[in-house]
């Protein structure tokens, strides 16, 4: 368990600034997720924390100690890579034991820790196999097992689910969450570009954009009180509806944001009217795409089965307390 502080952390590759001054505190035992579009610097930030990249300027503190110049193996971290990065020529057991062997732990202790971790992840029957004899999901477990064995203060994950298929992804997501609880809430930092993963796993989310922190908060905070159009549009599925021009001016702002579940269909008191141009029925929910004359159709989410046929003209009533009003700069309007 460790409390991690980033103080005005910067990283440039040559003249190219990737991390542009990040201040962030990750609390002890917290599950922190870095989320943002591809190329925004998530992996680089994680690698700075891991010690795989040199910090250009700023401070990195673990439990109050500056660790800028500490090598990765001395930081008490463990990392799970996107490609799993198992040693192809070593059996599962040796993959998991490698770090302990290098730290010259005793034979018995190594055996105990590897078997404990393997049992926890239900891979104890695979210890004699080579990585190439495992499925993607099993490799992922071995990679996590290798991290657990190190008994780290901080777990670092870089998009660990992106190589798995959709069903396995949901299952493994659940197991990572369970792992966090079963390991007495060890500090975990998890990088993803998938906001669903972020929302489901995180205690707190840090949204990154172009090397800067856009917003930090619990999933609910980000969902309900995004402090920029970027975050509002990034978090939540389907995407928040954004209206500009006359639609927004009616509410005294530059851009009006409203989530799909906060719009009701009703002719009485209708604020907007339009035609259903497309509909998606998910069984439990359905999405109506309504053309009200704005740049893009407004998405309306309704519970239950789809009952409104394509081409129907309907009225829409936005819920007044769930409107997000943004000014020209993309931040909430006063």
């Amino acid at each position, binding site marked *: 368990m460790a409390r991690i502080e980033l103080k005005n952390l910067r990283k440039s590759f040559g003249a190219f600034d990737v991390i542009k001054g990040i201040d962030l505190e990750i609390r002890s035992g917290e599950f922190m997720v870095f989320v943002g579009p591809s190329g925004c610097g998530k992996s680089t930030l994680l690698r700075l924390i891991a010690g795989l990249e040199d910090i250009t300027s700023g401070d990195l503190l673990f439990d109050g100690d500056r660790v800028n110049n500490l090598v*990765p193996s001395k930081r008490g971290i463990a*990392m799970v*890579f996107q490609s799993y990065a*198992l040693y192809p020529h070593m059996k599962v057991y040796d993959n998991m034991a490698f770090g302990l062997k290098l*730290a010259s732990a005793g034979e018995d202790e190594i055996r105990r820790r590897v078997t404990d971790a393997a049992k926890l992840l239900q891979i104890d029957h695979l210890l004699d196999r080579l990585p190439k004899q495992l499925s993607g999901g099993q490799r992922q477990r071995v990679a996590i097992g290798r991290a657990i064995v190190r008994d780290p203060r901080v777990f670092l994950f870089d998009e660990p689910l992106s190589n798995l298929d959709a069903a396995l992804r949901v299952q493994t997501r659940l197991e990572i969450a369970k792992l966090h609880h079963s390991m007495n809430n060890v500090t975990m930092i998890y990088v993803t570009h998938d906001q669903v993963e972020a929302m489901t796993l995180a205690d707190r989310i840090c949204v990154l954009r172009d090397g800067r922190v856009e917003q930090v908060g619990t999933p609910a905070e980000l969902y309900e009180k995004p402090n920029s159009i970027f975050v509002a549009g990034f978090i939540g599925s389907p995407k928040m509806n954004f209206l500009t021009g006359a639609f927004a001016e009616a509410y005294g702002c530059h851009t009006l944001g409203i989530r799909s579940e906060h719009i009701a269909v009703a002719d009485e008191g209708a604020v907007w009217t339009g035609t259903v141009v497309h509909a998606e029925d998910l069984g439990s929910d359905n999405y109506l795409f309504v053309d009200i004359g704005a740049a893009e159709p407004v998405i309306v989410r309704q519970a239950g089965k789809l009952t409104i046929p394509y081409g129907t003209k309907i009225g829409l009533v936005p819920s007044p307390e769930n409107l997000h009003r943004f000014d020209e700069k993309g931040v909430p309007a006063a």
Partner: protein
Amino acid sequence: MSASRLFYRIGFYIAVVLIVVISVFPFYYAVLTSFKTGTAIFEVDYWPKSFDLANYDKVLTQATFPRNLLNSLFVATSTVGLSLLLAVTASYALARVRFRGRGLLLITILAVSMFPQIAVLAGLFELVRYLGLFNTPFALIFSYTIFTLPFTVWLLTTFMRDLPLEIEEAAIVDGATPWVIITQVFMPLLWPALVTTGLLAFIGAWNEYLFALTFTSSETTRTVPVAIALLTGASDKEIPWGPIMAASVIVTVPLVVLVLIFQRKIVAGLTAGGVKG
């Protein structure tokens, strides 16, 4: 099957047979000749008629030939060992460590291999003399290593570059030093490349003639190619073809055996770019 496809297929196999015959025939003829003695050597035969081991007996009991064989073995093995050690460490740096002038260094290394042996012979001779290596096996190990290194470094650098970066980083997080990464993580993954480059270096050192002739002067320090060239018959005029052929066969056999042992790895080394997994 259409007539034209049949035609191409037959043509293909004829070409294969031609290539095999042309490349194997000289060795085959050497083997045949090595089993003949006396004037039979000068008769042209394409099938084995006699089977006489006298030439082998002569070569192997001759005072220095076994010694020359051992010299060759020692020189070639040491060259392989030394150049692989240097090349593996150098290529790790060239492939994985970011430093200024890396590209220039790679080009320079390649440029070194452009010089023909004869062009550097005089300079190298002075160097060997200066280092006090003249007429020792170390003169040969030294000069062969210089000549195989550029190629070996280049090949291994290419292979090393293809190894996944995340595997190296996983090892770093596990606490591995560069030496541990090279020896315990990369070398096992580079086996095909190591075998291929090692074998090529071995063959180069085993066959080399010019340096071996120049840097050694006594019969007991010579390597096999020089020893064969300097085999003498009973009189000055007589060229001892029988023993020469027997000796040629003897020096070829180790190479054939090595290639057969490692052939799978060689193919893997020449085709596969890296390691998946």
